[in-house]
């Protein structure tokens, strides 16, 4: 008996986590997938009834807005955070004397809750008392800045706050990458008199391809999950102008009592994540096994 216990201890230790993952991750995904194929409303029902919920999603102008917003927000957020992060990393890589302090300043927003970030920016962008009033007070009487309450512009305030929060993290990733480039190659290029910008664009940046991929995955993941930031900054409004699939799902699940729509929109989110993450994880795990 003790011998058997001894031999199987690793499996016994892993078993509860294995069961938890199978039930609470994969079982739950299965449940949501199943319910997304039913006519569930206030209560979950389990009789499968084709793709009716997905049809309703496709017909819903609110969900369409949410998907368009995800595309706008996701693209701008990822591109701007990457470009800004890379720029900051390169600037900081020039033998800056107070690098540690500056790095701390650029990265601290990452420690904040999205609710805190949203609250702060909501106040700064306040159309009456925020930045608009401040600049008016400086003598620019005609200055207007009402993005937060403008249905066409509000989504860009979400981009702004999200970039503020996450670009420091991208900088940290890239800075670690810049530091890991082989110094000998750089020195050789300098001896040959190759200008600094060429050293970066032709040698250093191309060698960081895996870091670009990592940063992309993390940012894409943050973008799809962005929920708290929208809730705190715009509440999805004005109207539902800044709804994302995440806020749509939440509204359907907890305020509209439409479980079918909640489940199907969650599955759409899942699918978006799946197409981005699975190839990445697959390649990661394969190289790690070698």
């Amino acid at each position, binding site marked *: 008996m003790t011998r058997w216990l001894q031999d199987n201890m690793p499996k016994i*230790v892993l078993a509860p986590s294995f069961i938890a*993952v*199978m039930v609470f*991750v994969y079982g739950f995904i299965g*449940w949501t997938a199943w*319910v997304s194929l039913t006519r569930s409303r206030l209560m979950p029902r389990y009789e499968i009834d084709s793709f009716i919920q997905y049809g309703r999603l496709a017909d819903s102008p609110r969900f369409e807005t949410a998907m368009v917003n995800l595309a706008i927000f996701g693209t701008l957020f990822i591109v701007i955070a990457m470009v800004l992060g890379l720029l900051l990393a390169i600037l900081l890589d020039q033998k800056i004397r107070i690098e540690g302090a500056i790095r701390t300043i650029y990265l601290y927003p990452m420690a904040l809750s999205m609710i805190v970030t949203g609250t702060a920016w909501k*106040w700064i962008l306040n159309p009456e008392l925020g930045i608009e009033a401040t600049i008016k007070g400086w003598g620019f009487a005609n200055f207007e800045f009402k993005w937060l309450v403008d249905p066409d512009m509000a989504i860009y305030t979400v981009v702004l706050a999200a970039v503020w929060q996450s670009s420091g993290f991208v900088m940290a990733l890239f800075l670690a990458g810049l530091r890991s480039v082989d110094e000998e190659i750089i020195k050789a290029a300098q001896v040959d008199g190759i200008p600094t910008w060429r050293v970066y664009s032709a040698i250093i940046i191309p060698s960081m391809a895996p870091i670009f991929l990592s940063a992309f995955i993390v940012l894409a993941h943050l973008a799809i999950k962005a929920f708290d930031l929208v809730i705190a900054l715009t509440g999805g409004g004005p109207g539902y102008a800044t709804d994302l699939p995440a806020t749509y799902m939440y509204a359907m699940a907890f305020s509209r009592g439409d479980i079918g729509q909640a489940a199907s929109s969650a599955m759409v989110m899942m699918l978006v994540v799946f197409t981005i993450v699975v190839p990445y994880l697959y390649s990661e795990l394969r*190289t790690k096994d070698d």
Partner: protein
Amino acid sequence: MTDMSYAPTRTQSPTTKLVLRFVLYILLALFALFYLMPLFVMITTSLKSLDEIRTGDLVSLPREVTFDAWRTAWSSACTGIQCEGVRPYFLNSLLIAIPAVLISTIIGALNGYVVAQWKFKGANIFFALLLFGCFIPFQVVLLPMAIVLGKLGISGTIPGLIFVHVIYGLGFTTLFFRNYYVSIPSELTKAAMIDGAGFFRIFWSIFMPLSLPIIVVSVIWQFTQIWNDFLFGVSFSQAGTQPVTVALNNIVNSTTGVKEYNVDMAAAIIAALPTLLVYVVAGKYFIRGLTAGSVKG
């Protein structure tokens, strides 16, 4: 610091170099302003009176410093019908975060130890399944979790939230410890086994003493995640068990009475303080946690 300059010395005169250097520092300072500005605005706004907020501007220093807003935010601001400030919710967040961080870190350490050192058929598949679980959008588990918490009788309670955070934190904690333990030579485990040491003895006497850095990474990561969580907090709590993020959002968006921006900002800073403190004290480990999952070791 390494001693290398990317600037080729022969092509630039000392003056150009000085100008470039100057521009560089200006740029760095401007970006620093961009990142610091919201924090600065939050702090100054929280120290102003409402009158001053209405007449003054965003970036001016308070003419008269008052801590009234802080007092209100802490103990009497309204989060809906209740007006007890953020204090009870701050406590809730602690009661949720501390056990959840400890439990998920302990289980993650054991899991990581097994996956990295006791390879058996299926251990890698388990790890892959667990890793993928880190990436799912939690919306996809929200509805069934609400039902299961109800069936377990812990719906809307703090133990319920601890349970949820432990389950969905396991992926990351296991990943941290697995990646850390995988670099420890397996000969060490084998030699200890020959000497008669068992599974837990090896873990406790050989692996634990080496683990302090990764424990710090795991604790900091989990604490930040759980403290800052909003989705689970808002979905699985009820009046009285809400974490501080939910309370903050309720204070800011409560529609009753006069909008007190200074109280909103004080409440936001209070909600941010614990994770900011962790970041300032242990920033190095915070960054290690952030990058652990995304950069190949």
